[in-house]
């Protein structure tokens, strides 16, 4: 029991506390790639702390939805953190739900965030909501097909189980379907977490915004919660990507040593992915909104190819 | 002798009836058409009388007499009265011209022979040979109704059709039972009277007795 609580606590801490670090890392690497020094990797912590100290200006037009959403977002992310196998393949709360539950938890957050975007009645918020929902909806088939591909590979949709089977499969990286599914899932992760080329998290131009446009109205602690949640989402997605597709180092048995190794492995894998994202973001431009379907259908095609390859390999 | 003569006579008279029908196609003036009908009816009455004599049927003789009275005297009178009352009318051309009509009628006669051949063949009566002729009369009467534009001519066509049916019945079975025949005569008479009234009303309402004018009720 204590081990279980310990593991879940570690997971919560990794996600909750690691999220700003991850964001900082991506920004730092990006700055470096742009020839800047950039803020330190710990800058996001400072940002969040500062936001907590500020008052919140809330539009008179808004309703309780606007104020409720940040809390819900954080709650869904923390809940996700509890059921994702970050360290071991025996996540204590894994019984809460499988990967589909996870995706729907994300969707729940997106749903409310989009509502919040509409709540203030500003044109930007509405625009952001509309775009965010469009991207989310279009990404959904890829997610599910990628999951189907995984289910074909391991015969299961339980996160723990997928990781476990992967960890014991030495030829994993040589499976074309696996790599295709990874690529598809990676693109989806970019779309879901609002990274380039889908969305530019650093943009100042309202008309090009997606995620940012929805949160333009937030300030103070609400903004802090939302940024934090966004960071957590990125972390969870990257952790998922690394553990589902590269399940090296994940603890198959729950011993302190194994967990410690898993922690280190996770940090390394996520870090590598973060660097990858930063490099990608430096190299590519944001796509026009109406070019996005091409990207997402491309990822869908990849996922479908993965399915096909598994069908034929079987 | 009589037995030999009888079918020939019947066939001859039947042809006369059919001939009258043919003439109706050619005739243009109404009064002449009415007279033609009277002639046809008279021939028919004679034929009925001949058959009545041959079969010694009193009923049929009665029918012949009634026929003569009705179709040679009463109905032509009624129609003549109508013709007089309508007055002179420009004769509208039929849909098909006379030559074409005659060709069509030739075709109709062929059809009649073709259709009625089995009936004629299966009939033991001496009059049976002429059955197709009677049916040809029916078809020609029908055709006149289709081809002619004036209401009165249509009625004459109908009457000739009726005559031919009577002829058919006569030839095939020596006539239908008396009571039926009387009923039929009654119907024909009433029908003609009603038609007469309608013709007057059409004249009144449409200023013409051309049936083509009756074209409001469509679709």
């Amino acid at each position: 029991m204590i081990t279980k609580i310990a593991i879940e606590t570690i997971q919560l801490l990794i996600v909750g506390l690691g999220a700003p670090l991850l964001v900082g890392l991506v920004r730092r690497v990006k700055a470096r790639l742009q020839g800047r020094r950039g803020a330190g990797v710990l800058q996001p912590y400072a940002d969040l702390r500062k936001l907590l100290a500020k008052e919140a200006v809330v539009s008179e037009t808004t309703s309780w939805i606007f104020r409720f959403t940040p809390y819900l977002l954080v709650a869904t992310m923390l809940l996700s953190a509890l059921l994702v196998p970050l360290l071991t393949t025996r996540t204590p709360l894994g019984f809460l739900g499988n990967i589909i539950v996870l995706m729907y938890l994300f969707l729940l957050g997106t749903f409310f965030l989009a509502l919040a975007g509409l709540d203030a009645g500003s044109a930007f918020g509405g625009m952001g909501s509309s775009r965010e929902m469009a991207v989310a909806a279009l990404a959904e088939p890829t997610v599910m097909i990628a999951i189907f591909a995984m289910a074909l590979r391991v015969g299961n949709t339980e996160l723990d189980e997928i990781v476990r089977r992967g960890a014991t499969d030495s030829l994993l990286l040589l499976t074309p379907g696996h790599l295709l599914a990874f690529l598809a899932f990676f693109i989806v992760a970019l779309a879901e977490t609002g990274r380039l080329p889908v969305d530019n998290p650093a943009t100042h131009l309202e008309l090009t915004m997606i995620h940012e446009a929805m949160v333009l109205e937030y300030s103070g602690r609400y903004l802090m919660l939302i940024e934090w949640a966004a960071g957590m989402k990125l972390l969870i997605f990257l952790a998922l990507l690394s553990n589902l597709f590269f399940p090296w180092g994940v603890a198959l048995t729950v011993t302190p040593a194994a967990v410690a190794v898993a922690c280190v492995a996770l940090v390394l894998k996520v870090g590598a992915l973060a660097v990858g994202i930063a490099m990608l973001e430096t190299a590519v431009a944001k796509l026009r909104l109406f070019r996005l379907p091409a990207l997402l259908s491309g990822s869908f095609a990849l996922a479908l190819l993965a399915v096909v390859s598994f069908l034929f390999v079987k | 002798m009589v037995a030999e003569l009888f079918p020939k006579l019947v066939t001859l008279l039947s042809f006369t009836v059919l001939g009258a029908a043919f003439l109706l196609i050619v005739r243009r003036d109404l009064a002449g058409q009415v007279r033609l009908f009277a002639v046809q009816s008279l021939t028919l009455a004679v034929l009925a009388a001949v058959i009545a004599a041959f079969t010694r049927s009193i009923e049929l003789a009665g029918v012949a007499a009634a026929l003569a009275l009705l179709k040679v005297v009463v109905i032509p009178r009624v129609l003549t009265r109508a013709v007089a009352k309508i007055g002179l009318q420009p004769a509208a051309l039929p849909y098909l011209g006379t030559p074409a009509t005659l060709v069509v009628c030739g075709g109709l006669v062929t059809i009649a022979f073709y259709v009625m051949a089995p009936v004629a063949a299966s009939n033991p009566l001496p009059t049976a040979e002429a059955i197709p002729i009677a049916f040809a009369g029916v078809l020609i009467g029908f055709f006149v109704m289709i081809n002619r534009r004036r209401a009165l001519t249509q009625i004459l066509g109908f009457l000739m059709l009726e005559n031919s049916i009577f002829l058919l019945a006569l030839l095939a079975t020596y006539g239908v039972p008396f009571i039926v025949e009387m009923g039929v005569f009654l119907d024909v008479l009433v029908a003609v009277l009603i038609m007469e009234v309608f013709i007057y009303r059409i004249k009144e309402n449409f200023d013409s007795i051309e049936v083509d004018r009756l074209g409001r009720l469509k679709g």
Partner: protein
Amino acid sequence: MMLVALLLMPLIASALIMLVRPRVWLEIIHALAALSGLAVGLMVAARVWRGDVPVAVGGLLRVDGLSALMVVVITLLGAIAALYGLGYIRVEYDDSHLPRVRGFFALFHLFIFTMLLAVTTDNLGIMWVAIEGTTLATAFLVNLHNTPRSLEAAYKYLILSSVGIALAFIGTVLFYYAGVSRAGEIAVNWTSLRAAASTLNPQVVRLAFAFILVGYGTKAGLAPMHTWLPDAHSEAPAPISALMSGVLLNVGLYALMRFKVVVDIAVGAHFTGPWLLGIGLLSLTVAAVFLVVPRNYKRMLAYSSVEHIGVICMGLGFGGYWGVLGALLHVVNHALSKSLLFILSGNILLKYQTTDILRVRGLWRASPLTAGAFTAGTLALLGVPPFGLFMSEFLIFRAGVESGPVWVVILGVALLAVVFAGMLGSVNRMLYGTPPEKVEHGDVLSWSLAPLVVNFALLLVLGLTFPDAVADALDQALRVLGVSRA
């Protein structure tokens, strides 16, 4: 005796109406004759249903199960139409048009008489005479208003029906001819013809049936001989339309059925079946074409009669117990519903002074009672449960699936669906919306609609149940038609 009374009563009523003077008396005689006609008709039918076959006037008149059914239909709907006619004529013609009123009542009963004669006589010749008589009796009724339109309709009706019926006479003669060598002169009687049926020359019988089908088909309103029907039924005064569409067509069908029995025995049922199916389907198609977008609601009802007669023909064509049972039930149901609707159409005409569908609007608001009845009647007519027509159509198509080619059933049902769409759309257009300004609120002749309760009740009864009495009555009629429950 009762049989003779049945026939004499309308005749006498007709004569009396010509004689008496005050309008009230006319109306009283009219109503009495119709109601007592119904009473006597029911009594005659009751006798038949008890197993008796009344015969009168030396075998000239004979009422079997089929005739009894028709007698009931004629007298019942005659009575309903007569009662409605009272009110209707009152609204249409005041006392200054007494001759016309008198003519209407007199011809009305003459019309009833001819129909009754046609279905009660055993003599096929007399039947022919009587059916021709129906044309003659109704020709003036169609032209009652003496407008150019009604005149045109009446003229066409007269010419086409007369020609058609003349062809039927050829058929009758040929049957007589085929039978006379076997059964003697009484071969003109249906009973003896039927008795001798198996010995008849099949080829002649086939020819004869062609004439009969075209001839009586004209009278029954089967396509392509139906062309007079929409004209005449739409121009006639509402009570007459009700009788013509509801009853007279069935009399034509009745004649057809009588001959069909004989043909089926002489040649075999495989002969008439396809013909009736074909002509039924053709009627249905033609009606459907005209019911896609009807413009005139009385014509719409008339075409719907073509449609239903087609359906009945299909039932007869499919044959078998269920098919013929369905056809007979459909005869009754159609009579009930169609007379109902024509009567209501009279009300609408009185209210809106037009038969144009596009100019009738807001019937629900203008006269709710009429509208309600019209809606229910239309739905009944379209074959919607719980009304009888659904049941009879169900039986007919069931028979079709059982015996006939299934594609005919599919086509038939599809055509019925097209009719459904067309008629429902048009009726909706009439029912809803805002009525024109000149139309005042309130029902006309609401009390004259009271008898329609009978129609609705019967339609419901026939739609939901199958009482033993009805089953027995139909079984008797079916036995006449040579089918019995397997």
